[in-house]
């Protein structure tokens, strides 16, 4: 358990302190049953999402970032998945909600965009029909009207000649166009929340730039709150208002993009930033590295799971540090590290090499 709801609802900055989060996650735990026991993927996450913000969940493979976001919309339920905790959204508790309740939320109030658009789209149905279906599923409109709305939506996401392209099948689209089509389906019912799981990871960088610009302009126009799940810190810098850094199933640092990317506190965030080779800045003879590799779920150590790779490890690290603000000003910038808890200053070498 990290912070109490009272503490963490203070949000990212002064402006959100007065506001209620639209989505409030408490002590979310996700585990996968395997032959060798339960593998914990998400290990007690507390998170608030505010209306109209872009929140990035950043982490490496196995950090639990996708398991966390998918369990909010019930997309990883199954006999092998154990999910506990709460996620309150518009008076519904999403974790315990029935599949029927979830269906009324998913696609209407909370929409999802996946990394692999080809797998997410139905290969047998025309693109326009798939958008129209999502509209008629949640809105009382005629088939004809839904089709017109679908064409309009395809135009809005930047598909040229939308009336013509609405008749195309997914395989006739390029990767970038498929991602646009999936975005059109996701935004068809003007959702309050859009969850985008690595939406640009499979795309080339020039197409990624198009999709990021599209997401930003749609988000601004429609006021949709976006949760973007990514491993790419450049994407975070480009699009996010706030960032939560996940490591080994837990949030280890959260704050505004500026706080987390340009004044990181947690040794993992610092290491991650320092080891990312950028297209600007000095070029060190060798990149700063984090020794070892992220722990697999089953072999997660007790206490702070970053401790085995951490250069600043203390005796206290055998006990799990809580996610808390270590600023006297309580700006909403929180991290889960004993260094902050014990007010031990961290040498700044990892940042200076950037």
């Amino acid at each position: 358990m990290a912070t109490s709801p009272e503490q963490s609802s203070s949000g990212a900055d002064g402006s959100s302190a007065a506001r209620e989060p639209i989505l409030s996650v408490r002590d979310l735990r996700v585990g996968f049953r395997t032959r060798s026991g339960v593998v914990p993927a998400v290990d007690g996450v507390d998170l608030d999402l505010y209306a109209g913000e872009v929140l990035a969940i950043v982490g490496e493979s196995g950090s639990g970032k996708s398991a966390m976001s998918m369990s909010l919309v019930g997309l990883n339920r199954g006999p092998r998945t154990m999910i506990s905790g709460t996620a309150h959204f518009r008076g519904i508790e999403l974790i315990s909600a029935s599949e029927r309740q979830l269906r009324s939320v998913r696609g209407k109030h909370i929409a999802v965009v996946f990394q692999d658009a080809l797998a997410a789209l139905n290969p047998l149905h025309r693109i326009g029909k798939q958008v129209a279906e999502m509209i008629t599923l949640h809105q009382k409109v005629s088939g004809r009207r839904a089709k017109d709305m679908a064409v309009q939506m395809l135009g809005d996401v930047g598909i040229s000649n939308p009336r013509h392209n609405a008749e195309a099948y997914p395989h006739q689209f390029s990767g970038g166009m498929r991602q646009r089509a999936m975005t059109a389906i996701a935004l068809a019912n003007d959702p309050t929340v859009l969850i985008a799981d690595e939406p640009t990871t499979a795309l080339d960088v020039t197409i990624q730039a198009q999709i990021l610009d599209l997401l930003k302009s749609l988000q601004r126009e429609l006021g949709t709150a976006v949760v973007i799940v990514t491993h790419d810190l450049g994407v975070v810098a480009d699009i996010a208002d706030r960032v939560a850094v996940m490591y080994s199933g837990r949030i280890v640092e959260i704050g505004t993009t500026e706080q987390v990317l340009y004044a990181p506190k947690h040794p993992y965030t610092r290491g991650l930033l320092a080891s990312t080779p950028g297209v600007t800045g000095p070029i060190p003879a060798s990149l700063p590295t984090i020794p070892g590799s992220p722990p697999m779920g089953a072999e997660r150590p007790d206490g702070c799971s970053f401790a085995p790779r951490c250069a600043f490890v203390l005796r206290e690290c055998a006990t799990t540090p809580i996610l808390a603000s270590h600023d006297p000003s309580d700006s909403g910038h929180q991290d889960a590290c004993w260094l902050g808890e014990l007010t031990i200053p961290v040498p700044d070498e990892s940042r200076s090499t950037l």
Partner: protein
Amino acid sequence: MNTRRPPLLSASGLSVTYGGSVTAVCEVDLEVAEGETLALVGESGCGKSTLGRALLRLEPASAGTITFAGTDISRLSRAGLRLARADMQMVFQDPMGSLNPRRSIGAIIAEPLRQTRGVSVADALRRARELLERVGLSASMADRRPHEFSGGQRQRIGIARALASSPRFIVADEPVSALDVSVQAQVINLLGDLTRQENLTMVFISHDLGVVRHVATRVAVMYLGQIVEIADRDDFFAGPEHPYSEALLSAVPALRGDPSEVVRERIVLRGELPNPAAPPAGCRFNTRCAYATDLCLTETPALREITEGRMVRCHFPASDPDGRAVAAVDRDEDPIEHTAISSPTKEIA
């Protein structure tokens, strides 16, 4: 400057054609100097992987020659090629897909040494143990199978295998793309150490310009099967010459060193990559280029040297602002959109 040294490997008029119609690599001329790391960059379908494989003759060329250390390897027999391969090795993107799951990693690393240098099993295994230490693993791991290792460790094994026959030249195809950032940096450093210490010559294929900037000494940009720009690393990142290179570099979402650093204006290319089976006439980039004129629609620009060691395939490169100004007069519309990158300091609405 690298280009003044005699090349270890050179390709001339190299083309690779698939199915008789799709030219994946089109008449590439390329020289790689001893000891340098030349990055091949570009987006999916540009032909960079095909070119990398063709340089090692893992892909049959439909035209052109490849000369390695003074020998024309494009006409070598199978036996001759096997000998040449001792000096020319490949590191693949997906270490798991390229390592035989049933064999011990010692045997996997020893294999090319036995194949190409005819070394005995015992000697090859001894060398494999040395190499495991060399790439940051432990000799005692030699009996383990690939599935017992993490992604980063598997890539180290792939590198050890490539080094087994003491090659002079390595093609590394997206060797760190499948790795997490914290592990990627370790493998980038390993490749850097090895190339420096063993004086290895490397062609490094990557779509990630951040990684390229930390690995390469020179950069070659490909678009639709052709090389459109070659430059020394620092010159390239200081300011690309070709409009496609400019768009490619500006599209990388920038993680700045500090919030005050100015980010270059993003050039968002309109449209999609044309069908490689039917590339546009004239300059292949003309359908997406901001500076294209009638000349670009009809006349194919040659890859020409504009300053020493710097080649560009463009009628209106960035260093010719006057030419671009003239070109601008000919255009009726601006086919690119300039978008300022939003500041991460923007407040929560």
